[in-house]
């Protein structure tokens, strides 16, 4: 069963997904088992348009420092980070904080 989630790329991060800020995904993973780490791997493989842009999103096998991750509008640090078990209906927001202000 696929897990239906929404993924947002904000703060200029949409450059790595052809300028699309919001992605509604049907992730082919097992609900109750799949973690945010699995989702991040899936995103890296499917949403990032140009493989050259992967380092903009991933560093040392995890989301790059400086990208703020929210799970249903809550800081992922409060939700177990990458170990968070994803559920249908979840919204994941990735916001780059690296741009000038």
């Amino acid at each position: 069963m696929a897990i239906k989630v929404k993924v947002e790329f904000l703060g200029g991060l949409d450059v790595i997904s052809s300028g699309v800020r919001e992605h509604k995904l049907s992730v082919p993973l097992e609900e109750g088992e799949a973690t945010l780490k699995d989702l991040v791997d899936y995103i890296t493989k499917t949403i990032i348009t140009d493989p050259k842009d992967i380092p903009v999103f991933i560093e040392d096998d995890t989301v790059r420092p400086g990208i703020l991750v929210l799970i249903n509008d809550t800081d992922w640090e409060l939700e177990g980070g990458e170990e968070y078990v994803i559920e249908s209906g979840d919204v994941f927001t990735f916001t780059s904080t690296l741009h000038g202000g």
Partner: protein
Amino acid sequence: MTEERLPVRKVKVTALCELCHGRKAVMKRPKNLQKLCKECFYNVFETEIHNTITDAELFKPGDVVAIGASGGKDSTVLASVLKTLNERYNYQLKLVLLSIDEGIKGYRDDSLATVKRNQAQYEMPLEIVSYKDLYNWSMDEIVACAGMRSSCTYCGVLRRQALDRGAAKLGINHIVTGHNADDVAETVLMNILRGDTARLEKSTTIVTQSTGSPIRRSKPFKYTYQKEIVLYAHYKKLDYFSTECTYAPEAFRGTTRELLKSLEAIRPSCIMDIIYSGEHLTLKPKKKKITPKYKNQKKVNDEVEVNADGSVSLNKEFKDAGLEMNRAKVSIENNASIDGAAKLSKTLEQLSF
């Protein structure tokens, strides 16, 4: 990780706000790892900035203050928070948005549209000063002539001057900028890494003023984390612009920023710690060793060359800095070494209009 995997929909006791103990925590403060709900976060965020402002006595009642507004997250949050605090604590400030149009197609034109919306949202007057009007050169034209290599350096120097000129035009002598704790820590690190001890001591001061300029610049966000600024903008749904400038940032600054972000991921307090270290470093008084060349340059630059249309002659500024700007040339500084770029930046920053 030994964290229990409880159903997410149930609010865990550990996930409650550590201040009100009533609402669900939504964020963890990098400064002290405190878990807060939205309401308490807004309150703490705004109050800390208020404390920074009052501790440093940044404003007096009746002051007219220009907010350096780029449309980006920092200056948008700054405008929003200053408006809130001005009303809440009755600072009696008149706030004005001051924007610089560098003339970068596809970047600044879009971000200025954001500032124009902010003008209406925050009910503040807006003044836009353009490089083209002021120097008769847009940033796009400068890059076309001088190349991308030192574009950030040129742009930074010109923007500082342009902000001063814009403020002077409005009769304002105080500019606040959205520089945050991450920016300050980044500057401290960069100065350490470059051995730039002269700038190191000044890099953490909250109020700065160029010699001979009546205009003060201050950073109310000096102790405010970038992460919290982004979260504040996100939760409050503030309208901000977030596209990277078309021209690549200076490589050294970019690398320092990444280093800082990696450090922050391991030890979030390090940003405050670096600022603290910067504030408490007292350098041994050194023998004055100003290179005669710089000394002379400063004197020469005191004269301002103004064109008939009132714009400042850019050619002169760059010539004084050892550069030639010529529209006919395709490139002049493409082979400048790193060393040359640092020298150029030093020289440019010494310029006064």
